């Protein structure tokens, strides 16, 4: 497959990067697509290998917006670890608060020092000789300064916050709606300021390939929290026939255009359960590349159901992207459930637990009694169990 000729200066993210330096935190799949991790390895697997650079992931929020916000934080934390630039837009919580609360990455301590670099100096007092694990005595000590890991996808510890040193080394761009001057255009409605801001960042930082030769190429991660909610100034969540019925879909269309022509990837969370018009939601799904919906069990009758007791919610894959190919990565099955642990947001196939309830033995007992006499009256409650 030959790479497309480089004629225009606009960089297309779907061109094979033959001969160019590999971008941090990305890998190239077999279909000449540059992909990057979403921060959750289970989600990467479910979406067919990761998020393609230049694509848009839409997350339909759960009712309390707890897990979708968490996914957004994983996405941003992954960007910090990989050294990408981040852009965060929010209308409710201040972006700085979200950024300060990013989880701590769990990095392996098997990063070997580079050649020529002196080993870190030994401690003032020699460590006590190990009695039990004495074979590990001579292994290198844990590196405490921030290192960027080249692994694809990381795990995060939710009980701890991200190291401030790592945060300082990352470049952030934020958009907080109450602090911006309100600009309205008739086709984009309340989202024109956001689109303008995104386009300015992409242009100024050179993500669309228009920058000078000096800058190192990098990926921009865009996160937008709760797009479409009433706090953005849009009434698509409030009425069935909103005033600017096309503002949100036009914004998604323009965002898709900006993403396709630059080295960026976007994750947008949407309060889908509040959007009254289903056709608007259907259009938003078609305008995005990958769409995932979260359904959490808390405050629903499923919380106490024995079937779902091992999980915290269901993950529905509404759409998988197919870019640069005829067919997308078709998943094996679409019944996925998620479970939040301290160090991992695990997404697995929904397994029904074995039926170990008391009724099993009772049924077998009553069956034995009933079969002894054919004319006898039925004994108690015989439960038919198929």
């Amino acid at each position: 497959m030959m790479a497309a000729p480089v004629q225009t200066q606009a960089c297309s993210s779907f061109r094979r990067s033959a001969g160019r330096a590999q971008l941090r935190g990305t890998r190239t799949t077999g279909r000449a697509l540059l992909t990057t991790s979403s921060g959750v390895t289970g989600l990467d697997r479910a979406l067919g290998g990761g998020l393609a650079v230049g694509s848009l992931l839409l997350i339909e929020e759960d009712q309390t917006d707890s897990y979708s916000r968490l996914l957004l934080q994983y996405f941003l934390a992954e960007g910090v670890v990989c050294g990408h630039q981040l852009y965060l837009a929010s209308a409710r919580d201040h972006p700085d608060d979200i950024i300060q609360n990013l989880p701590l990455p769990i990095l392996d301590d098997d990063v070997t020092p580079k050649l020529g670099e002196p080993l870190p100096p030994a401690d003032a007092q020699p460590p006590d000789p190990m009695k039990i694990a004495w074979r590990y005595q001579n292994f290198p000590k844990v590196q405490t300064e921030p290192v960027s890991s080249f692994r694809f996808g990381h795990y995060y510890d939710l009980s701890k916050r991200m190291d401030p040193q790592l945060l300082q080394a990352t470049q952030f761009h934020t958009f907080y709606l109450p602090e911006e001057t309100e600009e309205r255009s008739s086709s984009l409605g309340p989202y024109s300021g956001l689109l303008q801001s995104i386009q300015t960042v992409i242009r100024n930082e050179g993500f669309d390939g228009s920058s000078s030769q000096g800058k190192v190429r990098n990926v921009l991660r865009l996160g937008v929290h709760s797009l479409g909610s009433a706090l953005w100034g849009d009434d698509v969540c409030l009425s069935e026939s909103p005033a600017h019925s096309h503002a949100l879909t036009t914004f998604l269309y323009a965002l898709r255009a900006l993403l396709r022509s630059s080295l960026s990837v976007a994750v947008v969370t949407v309060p889908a359960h509040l959007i009254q018009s289903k056709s608007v939601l259907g259009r938003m799904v078609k305008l995005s590349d990958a769409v995932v919906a979260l359904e959490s069990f808390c405050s629903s009758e499923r919380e106490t159901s024995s079937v779902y007791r091992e999980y915290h919610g269901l993950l529905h894959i509404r759409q998988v992207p197919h870019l640069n190919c005829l067919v997308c990565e078709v998943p094996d099955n679409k019944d996925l459930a998620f479970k939040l642990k301290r160090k991992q947001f695990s997404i697995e196939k929904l397994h029904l637990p074995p039926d170990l309830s008391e009724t099993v033995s009772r049924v077998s007992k009553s069956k034995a009694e009933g079969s002894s006499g054919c004319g006898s009256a039925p004994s108690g409650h015989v439960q038919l169990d198929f």
Partner: protein
Amino acid sequence: MFPDLNSILNSSPDSFREREFILLSDRQADASFLIHHYLTFYLKARCKVCFLGLVQSFSHYSVVSQRLGVNLTQAKEKGQLVFLEGLKASPGVLLNEDTSDTTHTFDYLRSPCAELRGLFEFVCKSLSQSGDEAGSEPWAPPVLIIDDLSVLLSLGVSAGAILDFTHYCQATICSQLQGSLVALVRCDDEEWDEDEENSSYLLKALTHQCSLSLRVEGLSTGYCRDIHGQVEIWRRGRAEENQRKVFQYKVHDKGASFFAPGTSRAVL
């Protein structure tokens, strides 16, 4: 192009029906693989193609067509393919930056009057020039391929305006220029609201205008890994030709295979 589909429709790059309005539609599935089929089919048939790419970038179609054996970049250079990059130009138009845009091609993005007249003039201009640069022989009848029409509804264009546009295109291309028109419409699962700005309404009206309709749907029994869906093919014609044919399909990396329902290799 998919050989299976060619044999079902009795067409090949050497002999195909002219003056056709082919309507591709989907519901709970993705019919864009058929767009790739028709794009490569008409390019192989040496037709002049005008492609309105409103939802994907040029490189996406280029990579897929490469796998199907057609080089889009070369076709564009020779003048056989005119590709409108609707997606790429949209942020500029929406943020009112492109003040030098004297043509009205992207008027559908400028509200309040979202119109498709400019787009129609672009189509006419690109398809009325015939003959390649070498001047050896003119191209075969022109073809317009639109991917896709329902995104215009998301951008605020009314269904009536879209129907006017397709009617004008059909009159110009199919009747005057003896060419063909291929359009894709994507519908939602159910008709949630009964107003006119619905893609199902658009689909019904276009089915009335078209001459060949391919409807792609997901399987009614649910999701399956080996059978991606089913296609219903209907051709307008005389009474004995007027029948529906249903096929199930599976899309591969380099094509798609079509088979009668129930005869998938996974089942037999």
